[in-house]
């Protein structure tokens, strides 16, 4: 439904040496997809969004919604932003403070070139949009008298009122309370599914991305490093960057002991000497340098000497720090020269200094590509 290919937009940045922007973005979204651009600050998420919206002019590439080409660098096509019929919610919401909520939402209808909307029609559509975001009755409020969450909904309603085919959201939740963010997250997702509108969502919060998306593109320094569904991104990170950016995985470096055929389970030795079993989807050869990621919560932690299921591949270490996260406890464990993050059950905290044993289920250990550069 949305096809982006070879999208490139490079900024020669005045402020610091490194140049920003995006390079060679390509993706193709089926209708109704909830697509998330995830990456650290400055990686080019907003730039991508602005190129699609037409707020920036890409240097190269093509953008097409359905069979309508919005931009084509080669053929010099560039539909101006106000003709693209895209809905967008800005990071700052950009609610116009000099208008009422109603006026804000009615604006896209008032300025619509293609067709005039009768007064009743407009009122109806705005009211509908308001109900969709659960703000019916707020129409007459001045826009300045809204809480963060309400503003965010108004922005959403404004983006939806003229029934765009594509919805763009730039970190819409980033300046809300933790609590409020939780709710809005669920609500947004519900809404999107209810309307079934194709959506591109920008965030640098991995849990947000994982919770909401059908499809995630993890970006790093202007490039997409992995494009996949949440589970895959989380459990089968393609690169070290993805692994460490998503949920702070542990990275284990070592050498493969014996050749393994694709999909088989092999073992590798850490510099510390310990042996860790691991499934190689792509196989591996003896002596090959391996880098693998393990999720904190996939590691089983128990006090030294306590029973632990008899799977081979265990490390011995001591708790350096333990922090209570409510649902569970986050331990920093020092095992030889390795420092590992491990998540344990909230009940019975192991105090710093306790010697512990860590166990690695083979399927939890995932080989990752080491960065070329």
């Amino acid at each position, binding site marked *: 439904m949305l096809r982006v290919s070879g999208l490139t937009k490079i900024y020669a940045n*005045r*402020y610091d040496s490194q140049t920003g922007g995006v390079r060679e973005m390509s993706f193709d979204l089926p209708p109704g997809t909830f697509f998330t651009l995830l990456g650290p600050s400055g990686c080019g998420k907003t730039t991508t969004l602005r190129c699609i*919206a*037409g*707020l*920036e*002019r890409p240097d190269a590439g093509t953008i097409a919604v359905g069979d309508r080409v919005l931009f084509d660098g080669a053929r010099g096509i*560039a539909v*101006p*932003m*106000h*003709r*693209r*019929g*895209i*809905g*967008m919610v*800005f*990071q*700052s*919401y*950009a*609610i*116009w*403070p*000099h208008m009422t909520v109603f006026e804000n939402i009615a*604006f*896209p209808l008032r*300025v*619509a*070139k293609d067709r005039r909307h009768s007064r009743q029609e407009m009122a109806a559509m705005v009211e509908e949009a308001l109900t969709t975001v659960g703000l019916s009755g707020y129409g007459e409020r001045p826009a*300045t*008298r809204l809480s963060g969450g309400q*503003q965010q909904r108004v*922005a959403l309603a*404004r*983006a939806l009122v*003229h029934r765009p085919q594509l919805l763009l959201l730039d970190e819409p939740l980033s300046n809300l309370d933790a609590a409020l963010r939780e709710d809005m997250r669920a609500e947004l997702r519900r809404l999107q599914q209810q309307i079934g509108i194709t959506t591109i969502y920008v965030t640098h919060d991995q849990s947000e991305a994982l919770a909401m998306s059908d499809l995630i593109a993890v970006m790093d320094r202007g490039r997409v490093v992995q494009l996949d569904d949440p589970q895959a991104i989380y459990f089968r990170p393609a690169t070290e960057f993805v692994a460490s950016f998503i949920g702070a995985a542990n990275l284990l470096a070592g050498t493969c002991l014996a050749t393994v055929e694709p999909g088989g389970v092999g073992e590798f030795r850490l510099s510390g000497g310990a042996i860790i079993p691991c499934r190689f989807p792509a196989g591996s050869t003896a002596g090959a340098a391996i880098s693998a990621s393990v999720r904190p919560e996939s590691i089983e932690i128990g006090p030294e000497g306590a029973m632990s299921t008899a799977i081979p591949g265990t490390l011995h270490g001591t708790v350096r720090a333990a922090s209570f996260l409510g649902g569970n406890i986050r331990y920093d464990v020092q095992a030889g020269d390795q420092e590992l993050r491990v998540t344990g059950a909230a009940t019975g905290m192991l105090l710093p200094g306790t010697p512990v044993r860590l166990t690695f289920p083979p399927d939890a250990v995932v080989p990752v590509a080491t960065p070329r550069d």
Partner: protein
Amino acid sequence: MSIPGTVGGVRGTARRRSPLALLRGDQRWPIALATSVLLALLMLPPLWILVQDSVTTTDAIGNVTGLTLAHFRKLVTDKDTLISVWNTLVFAAGSTVLSLVVGGLLAWLVERTNAPLKLLAYLATIISMGTPYILHVIAWLFLLGKVGPLNEGWRALTGAGGNLFEVNTMAGMILIEGLLWSPLVFLLLGATFRAANADMEEAARMSGATVFDTLRRISLPLAMPAILALALFVFIRAIGGFEVPALVGMPGRVFVLSTDVYEATIVVPPDLGYAAAFSVIMVVIVAVLLYFYSRLSKNAERYHSVTGKGYRPRPFDLGGWRWVAGAIIVVNFCVVLLLPLVTLLWMSLLPFLRGFSLAALPNLTLRNYRAVLQAGGYLDLALNSLTIAAGAATAIMLIALLAGWIAARRGPAGRILDQLATLSLVFPGICLGVAVMEVYLRVPLPIYGSLWIIAIAYVIRYMPYGMRYVYSGVLQLHHELEEAASVSGAGALTTLRRVVAPLLTPALVAGWLFIFLIANKELAIAVLLASPGSQVIAVAIFDAWTNGQGGELAAFGLMWTALMTVIACVFFAQMRRGAADVYGA
């Protein structure tokens, strides 16, 4: 509740796009084009005429007969020129420093501390905003003059002859010009201090810094770009300034460029070539300064828009020093406002000018007021003046809205627009007057000899101010507010009309009133361009002045000031509200 948009205008300025990319596929370029053409038509011809005059000879009837460098040669060979240039610089620099110190200190006290009696500071500013410069100057001349209370008092006390203070000296000029500008400085720096991020100062306090330390090491350095920009601005205006050098300097034989130009225009026949040559020199000096000004003022605005979450005006607690601050404010009030006004009142009540003395009391009379009220015509003149000023201000703000918006958003031709709009800052009032007259005599439209020509001259002269107001106003708006409109399907004009303009209202109104006020303060242009069809107040004032009707001038001036003050009050209220809206204070 602060406008969401105001948070992080910085980001807005950070986004810059290559002008080429913009010209393609940017729907603002028609606007940009139209605006630049309009501005070019306004701004360039006078400059052209000025340069032409400076390098050509003319016959008796003023037709160009040939090229020459004689005017410049005459200039550079004349040893007095160097002196004038030097005096000009000293004068401008001195008065700039003075006005910055006085106005700046006051602004800081009023905006950032809990000093008492702030109202007085505002009052002084408001009223002097509405008072024609020449009135101030006359009042000061009298106060500091040979028979003014200062010297009289000193003689009375010491019994010595002679004077404590010679007003007709560079010192006198600087003093008077400096005080003349301090209210404006107060106004503009006030805005800067209001916008400053209080966290920065509180952080210093928490680090153990006293109020003074904080002021010296944090507040001032942070405001420095704004201060420098303002300094340059005042400096430039002082270079072009005429009233003070003419009235104060010339009697003491302190000559500056603007008075040289003036003298060249009053000889018969007026030596326009020579005057133009002088003007060109001033233009060059100013242009150089202007280059720095534009760069500085950009920084200044960048600092301006640092507001954001939790911005709350949090004044310093001066503790015991509060009362010192209060004293400063009172003194300023007396010096800048009370004394001049009292003097004017005194002058207006006397049949002929003489020093303060009981002996004079018996001849106090309302004759001057009667004269003003009876002499017909003042009313029409007043109406004319108000109409012109209002018209000019409106036109300026409209053009500036377009130009300023595109320039601030780095739109197509943004730089060009900015430069065109700021160009006329280089004109000293007189030079502009002459140039404009010559231009519109050649235009086959019934502009010359009508009120239009004065209005146009005002538009040219005050365009830069309107531009500044809009420009910084736009920078206060988050760019996403506009982008949201575009994405919603609004074209450039719609966006401008329905989103940008409404959000800029405070800036627009403030700018309008500001221009309206200063347009009614200055003489040079109007006097030169006024013709039977277009008499304005300035001319009446000029008459009264050259004719030595000091009393009548004072009487009339006071009434005019009263009227202007009312308008200035509106202006001021606007400024405050504007600030409140924009900074979410």
